[in-house]
């Protein structure tokens, strides 16, 4: 018997029992649809997070005062880093392309009759480049203006919207905690993360911030940009070494600063999101498994029901292999059908989730192939036992079966 004839026979038997076929396939449909939609949601979340995080630059090393006890807990003195340290790093570390010290604090802004509360960030001249801020209008301040602690500022797009409502702010003067600042530039919007809007801040020279606004002489962090992402570890070690020397820290004593990089953050976020994806995919895979058991169940019923048919086929010369193939093709067809419908349903679900939930979803070809291959494999795996049972029936007994 040619495979094509077996295929036609299997198809006919499935068409004869439409409802049964559909209900059997339903397990696979739900399984595949959930695998695809779950993975697309997980993958979407991962990509969204990674892309927003990488907007802040992935080759940045951050030096902060105090000691980091765990990822989120810092202890120790907060005033151990100074602008001097930033300059010292810039002069003594190789393989870097920029250093920017920062101080930041929330402050009240005022322009004409409009008020807003925002983060005021005092930075070095290279901060815009390091933090991936592009200029929309005007320019960022330069080293000379930092040295002379000029009262000038660059506005983030959210602040621009709140204070100026789309009017050109260049050359205008705003009040920061009551002190006049000249607006010299605005930045291109980066887009907000759910917990943090990088556009809701203004940038002023770090020296101005220290002396004229916040009244402090330390800095809150120093960002260092590595030329090559591969050099991050070496640079981190170098920074630690020279800062320990500069701060006169005796051997065996703890650092009064700590060094971290954003790619660590990125990796741990990526890992977390990946785990999330695997978890969702795993749950979905279990439902696919249950669907497979459903196929096996129905195929066993079908074999019993068709014992006589199997007997007839064997009597007129069907070989064991041909009976096995016939039933295997049936179960694979069911899972194939279920897989196909499940893929469409899964894509539909992830579309709906991304439309309604304002949540990016990514249906990858990989997940479709995975789900489809898995469902066909389940058809073969769970179809084999019933098909084998059919193939091994004794023709005499099968013919006698009522």
């Amino acid at each position: 018997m040619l495979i094509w004839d077996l295929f036609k026979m299997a198809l006919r038997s499935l068409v004869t029992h439409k409802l049964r076929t559909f209900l059997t396939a339903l397990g696979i449909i739900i399984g595949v649809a959930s695998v695809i939609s779950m993975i697309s949601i997980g993958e979407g979340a991962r990509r969204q997070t990674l892309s927003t995080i990488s907007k802040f630059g992935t080759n940045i090393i951050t030096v902060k005062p105090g000691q980091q006890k765990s990822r989120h807990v810092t202890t120790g003195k907060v005033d151990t880093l100074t602008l001097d340290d930033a300059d010292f790093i810039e002069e003594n570390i190789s393989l870097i392309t920029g250093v920017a010290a920062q101080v930041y604090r929330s402050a009240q802004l005022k322009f004409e009759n409009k008020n807003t509360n925002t983060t005021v960030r005092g930075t070095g001249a290279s901060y815009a480049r390091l933090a991936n801020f592009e200029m929309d209008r005007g320019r960022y301040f330069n080293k000379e203006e930092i040295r002379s602690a000029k009262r000038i500022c660059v506005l983030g797009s959210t602040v621009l919207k709140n204070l100026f409502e789309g009017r050109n702010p260049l050359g205008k003067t705003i009040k920061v905690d009551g002190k006049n600042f000249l607006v010299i530039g605005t930045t291109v919007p980066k887009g907000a993360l759910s917990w943090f809007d990088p556009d809701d801040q203004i940038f002023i020279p770090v020296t101005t911030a220290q002396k004229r606004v916040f009244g402090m002489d330390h800095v809150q962090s120093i960002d260092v940009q590595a030329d090559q992402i591969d050099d991050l570890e070496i640079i981190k070690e170098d920074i630690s070494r020279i800062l320990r020397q500069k701060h006169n820290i005796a051997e065996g004593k703890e650092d009064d600063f700590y060094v971290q990089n954003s790619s660590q953050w990125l990796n741990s976020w990526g890992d977390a999101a990946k785990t999330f994806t695997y978890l969702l995919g795993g749950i979905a895979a279990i439902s696919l498994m249950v669907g497979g058991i459903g196929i096996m169940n129905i195929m066993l019923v079908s074999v019993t029901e068709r014992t006589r048919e199997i007997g007839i086929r064997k009597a007129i010369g069907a070989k064991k292999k041909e009976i096995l193939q016939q039933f295997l093709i049936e179960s694979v067809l069911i899972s194939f059908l279920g897989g196909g419908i499940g893929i469409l349903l899964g894509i539909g679900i992830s579309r709906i989730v991304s439309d309604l939930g304002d949540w990016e979803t990514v249906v990858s070809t990989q997940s479709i192939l995975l789900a489809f291959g898995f469902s066909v494999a389940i058809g073969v795996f769970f179809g084999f036992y019933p098909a084998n049972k059919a193939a091994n029936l004794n023709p005499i007994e099968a013919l006698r079966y009522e």
Partner: protein
Amino acid sequence: MIEVENLSKIYQMGGQQVAALAGVDFKIEKGEFVAIMGPSGSGKSTLMNLIGCLDLPSSGTYRLEGLDIQDLKPNQLAEVRNRRIGFVFQSFNLLPRATALENTELPLLYGRVPKSTEIALQALERVGLAHRAKHKPTELSGGERQRVAIARALVNSPAIILADEPTGNLDSATGKEIMDLFQELNEEAVTLILVTHEQEVAQQARRIMQMKDGKIIADTSNGAGSC
């Protein structure tokens, strides 16, 4: 064509050995029309299963067209059933969802015979059912169903056609039609072996073998032959 020597079949039943067939010998030549008779339990079904290559003997030899059947593997037996044997059953045993033509074609498909549809149609024509080719068994009368079964048995030009109580489920008029068809086929040199417990049916054969307790107790040629 058929040579059976000391053929026996022993079943294990609850620790006891039961000889369903206790050593039979006979020969059947090409073109013969043989009826095997006997009460139930006489071993005629067992003999039929062995001749039909559905089962293997416990001992003895069975040679079909020079082929030693008792030495064959299951797949080879399936091939022998497919090419050399046609079955006609009491309860027709057609596939309910397939048309008459598809039922008739089935042995050709398993045998991978080319132009199977044409050959199947010719076989249906031979039993006078070409006009019902597209009908399903449920749309056919009992007599018509048995004709389809006979067409299916004929379609591979087998060495023998084995009929097990072919008229058992038919009324006497239809049963007679079927027996007439068998007569016609026999006249066209088809070898027929008929298993029955009805004297009337057996009388249509040219040779009658009587069985009892797993043995052939009489093997007589039936002069009348036809009706």
